[in-house]
């Protein structure tokens, strides 16, 4: 099973799709590498958070996803 990437908010527009599958294992460098320049830059911005299987990482650069994991890329939530 691959790793499922889920793009939320405007990251889905940048990615061109709400989801994408990538090969496991997946660490931070591999994630940035697989996303391409524009999406990689957006992800590196300090306001984008990363969750693995529904748990938000306190340090996203410590990402370590394996087969079957779901990795969500979360831009800042919208205001009122």
């Amino acid at each position, binding site marked *: 099973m691959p790793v499922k990437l889920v793009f939320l*908010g405007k990251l*889905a527009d940048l990615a061109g799709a709400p989801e994408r599958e990538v090969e496991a294992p997946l660490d931070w460098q591999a994630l940035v590498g697989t996303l391409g320049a524009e999406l990689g830059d957006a992800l590196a911005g300090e306001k984008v958070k990363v969750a693995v299987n529904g748990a938000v990482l306190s340090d996203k650069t410590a990402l370590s996803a394996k087969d079957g994991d779901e990795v969500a890329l979360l831009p*800042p*939530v*919208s*205001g*009122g």
Partner: protein
Amino acid sequence: MKDVRLLAEAFAPGQFLEPFAQAHPGLGGICTFVGAVRADEAVEALELSHYEPLTLAGMNALADRALERFELMGILIVHRVGEMRPGEPIVLASAAAHHRRAAIEAVDFAMDHLKSDAWFWKREKRAGAWHWIEPRAEDHADLARWG
């Protein structure tokens, strides 16, 4: 009583408010806020997206924090997702308590957190094109009031 719902379809506030009020006989007061899609000539539609594993869990945790922080008999939080038109309710927060200040403050607290500290992403359709809505400085100031 804690009642937290994420809805993909339009709702009428009364359908949740009436059973909520009836579930708390002996209450002193209920405070309720209903937020709707503001009418704005330029906006054709609003879409709220969410992330299933985080959004409902976050709303439940928020309801729990309100129950801990204020002396409540119960709390009701309902939030829409999906595409909405001006005038449709987006969010409903209601708190039942023995005393009014607890009910009013709990709704104020819940709304500040739902608006800027909950896992929702919004975009508006204007002239046929969708535009993402960014966080507002005002919302962070509102949130900072709660420490």
